[in-house]
């Protein structure tokens, strides 16, 4: 047994005030942080409010912040956190309002989930085989490698810096769920699904990868978002700012080996759209960002060679997916 100091952010849900409360828990280092929290509940303070149920990373109830990172406390072990930080600080998830202590109101998370039509859409004019399963090729099954593992714990949603900045953005979990239906051979709403997430809904993803790091089931939502973006460009091109920005970013670098912000903004937004960006341009110049045209860099031919290699036709369906690393156990 080790005596482990805990600092837990308390909030009675009525006064609107939060404060850290300290506890010391006798716990084995190879035990889950959930076990320590339940010890606090049963031996020290039964008023500590939290969600938990299965204690094996399948119900998705117990996501909270552990030393600043969004984690399931049932599969995050005491030892590594304690050794790295000297204490264990527990706070509620971000991007959701606190109901009480570690319990948050998940309405915005579920609203986004519901926004992607999270159910199989099947055109009744092509009925499924009567009394028999639909057949799926190994390649089709391979598309489902990660997404069925999602347990909707919202750790990714808590870790995402973009969901808080724009209510339009659907966030990692909902987009991973959308990907799951988009690639389902039984689903007949392929075009409609990709059409429905244009602009900020999909393209606001910053590719910071924090959702990948937070996901306890290795769904790697950011990668699924990239997959969706590729499918969206293939299916409907670049009719709006989000996808066009990505496309022009690509050609911009290919041309000169360096990013030309002015050109990128003009190509993404058009001349009229640029007018709205004048203020931002002035602000950028004030902060020492040059908006002049950048000459191509010296090794631009090498950049073009890299592009040529990347532009080789890629078989999306046949790509190798790395084996899942499974549930995180503290810091591995």
């Amino acid at each position: 047994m080790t005596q482990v100091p805990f600092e837990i952010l308390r909030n009675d849900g009525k006064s609107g005030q939060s404060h850290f409360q300290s506890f010391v828990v006798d716990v084995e280092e190879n035990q889950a942080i959930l076990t320590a929290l339940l010890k606090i509940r049963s031996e020290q303070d039964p008023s500590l409010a939290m969600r938990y149920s299965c204690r094996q990373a399948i119900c998705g109830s117990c996501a909270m912040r552990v030393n600043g990172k969004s984690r399931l406390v049932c599969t995050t072990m005491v030892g590594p956190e304690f050794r790295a930080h000297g204490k264990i600080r527990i706070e509620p998830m971000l991007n959701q309002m606190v109901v009480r202590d570690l319990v948050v109101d998940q309405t915005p998370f579920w609203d986004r989930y519901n926004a992607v039509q999270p159910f199989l859409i099947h055109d009744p004019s092509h009925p499924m085989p009567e009394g028999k399963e639909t057949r799926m090729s190994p390649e089709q099954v391979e598309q489902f490698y990660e997404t069925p593992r999602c347990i909707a714990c919202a750790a990714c949603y808590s870790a995402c810096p973009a969901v808080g900045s724009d209510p339009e953005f659907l966030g990692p979990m909902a987009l991973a769920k959308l990907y799951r239906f988009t690639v389902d051979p039984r689903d007949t709403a392929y075009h409609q699904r990709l059409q429905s997430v244009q602009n900020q809904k999909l393209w606001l993803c910053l590719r910071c990868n924090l959702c990948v790091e937070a996901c306890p089931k290795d769904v790697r939502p950011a990668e699924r978002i990239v997959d969706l973006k590729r499918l969206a460009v293939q299916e409907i091109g670049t009719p709006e700012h989000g996808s066009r920005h990505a496309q022009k970013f690509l050609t911009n670098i290919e041309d000169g080996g360096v990013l030309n912000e002015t050109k990128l903004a003009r190509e993404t937004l058009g001349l009229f759209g640029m007018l709205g960006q004048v203020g931002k341009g002035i602000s950028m110049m004030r902060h020492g960002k040059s908006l002049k045209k950048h000459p191509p860099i010296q090794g631009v031919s090498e950049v073009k060679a890299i592009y040529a290699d990347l532009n080789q036709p890629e078989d999306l369906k046949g790509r190798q997916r790395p084996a899942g690393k499974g549930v995180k156990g503290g810091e591995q």
Partner: protein
Amino acid sequence: MGVLSKLHPLRSHSGAAQGGINAALDPKDSVKDHVYDTVKGSDYLADQDAAEILCKEAGPTVIEMEHMGTIFNRAPDGSLDRRAFGGASYNRTIYAADRTGLALLQALYEEVGRDRKIRVYEEWDAIDLIVRDGRVQGVVAMERKSGHIEGFAAKAVVLATGPAGRIYGKTTNSHESTGDGCALAYRAGAFLKDMEFVQFHPTCLPHTSILITEGARGEGGILRNAKGERFMERYAPHFKELASRDVVSRAIVTEVREGRGFPDGTVRLELMHLGKEKVESKLQEIVSYSRTFAGIDPVVEGIPVFPAQHYMMGGISTNPKAETNISGLYAAGEAACVSVHGANRLGANSLLETLVYGKIAGQNAAAYAKTATASTLSQADVEASQNTVHALLERKDGETPAKIRTEMQSTMDELVGVYRHPDDLINAITRISQLKVRYTKCIVTDKSTTFNLNLIEAIELGHMLDLAEVIVAGALARTESRGAHVRTDYPKRDDQKWMRHTLASVTKEGPNLTYLPVTVTEFQPKERAY
């Protein structure tokens, strides 16, 4: 129509079911064999008419779930893949890696979300079931977020409230598996059937009791004792590791008791010979459970395992129409006992029972509601529940529910386990009744109306104590060994006397036990060997 759930529905314990769902879909397999395996697995206590419905509906149910969107594993030809499972004479377990429950739960929940005609009340705890004038009138429930207590008038109620595993300390079940629906029905006058039959899953991790699916043995996993012996060859020469769960659990307990276990009191489940790729792709969850919770890598070493409480064969007594003895009250899933599992459930038959009898319950409840008169649930019913809760909150001094719960769990772990000694059972009855007295004086120190878990755990503890009492009473009365119920003083099955179901009903003095004959259609009881 409304669904009340104490958790968000996707957090339900069905999601933790790992191994698969049985269906005789292969042309070389047969429904009759599935029925036979189920009845044999039940040690002939299953009602065979109910088992026939279960197995006949299995194929269409799996196909319906596939069409709904469930992502199952596939064979190379694109059809549904199948794996071997315990007590089954044919590979008929359809699966989704080792998270079949999650796959089915997701698909079903997605279907509920399709037209939004079903209102889901998330995080509402049912605290009273109102029965009057010989029929159900609805439920009274409390919202976790606000502490608000409200009445839900209903012409028909389906209880699909799941397991009660937390009566035990060493259980694979989730913390929320507290048997609430079972206890509410029992208190309202419903019969509980065969509660003494408690399944102990053979392969669970030590300390945490986290389940290692039977699918691991279905894929070829082998059990060995500390001497390196594949000991199941002695207990079940034909089925070996894939004998029924009661048989394998007893074998493991016997090996360890007779000194052939490892120093930590476990045996080993070996998967190494299956190869890294198969283990990591078909058993993803259990690989991570082993690494996270036991610190071992099943690709290179054996997993330490020991039996833990896993499933209640018993539950709210229903007939094959999912009706209880109370008009308008239906039950399905682990909360119910129809009975298709009898004295021992076969692996991968629980998800099947939940779906098949869940659908039957829903259809019959809907039909009943169409003809029933309006519910008489009133404000007085709600106030009665409110008063009970307020009285609990106002108690000034006493013990915490956590302390009583811990003692109940250790009582059940130590005295009502795989092998049952009569003295232990008598001791357990005494201890549970003492705990029930202490429970009437326990206090809730948290007085908040917002997400008051302390209050909820006090209510749940009351439910669990009622069910614990019924389990022990049934176990003490049943003087034979059948399936998962093994009496050290009556080691043999006694068909003459005990080919019958236990029915428990509530009285002021505790459970009153009566008995009901078993329905036998095709398979006469014979000696069970694997």
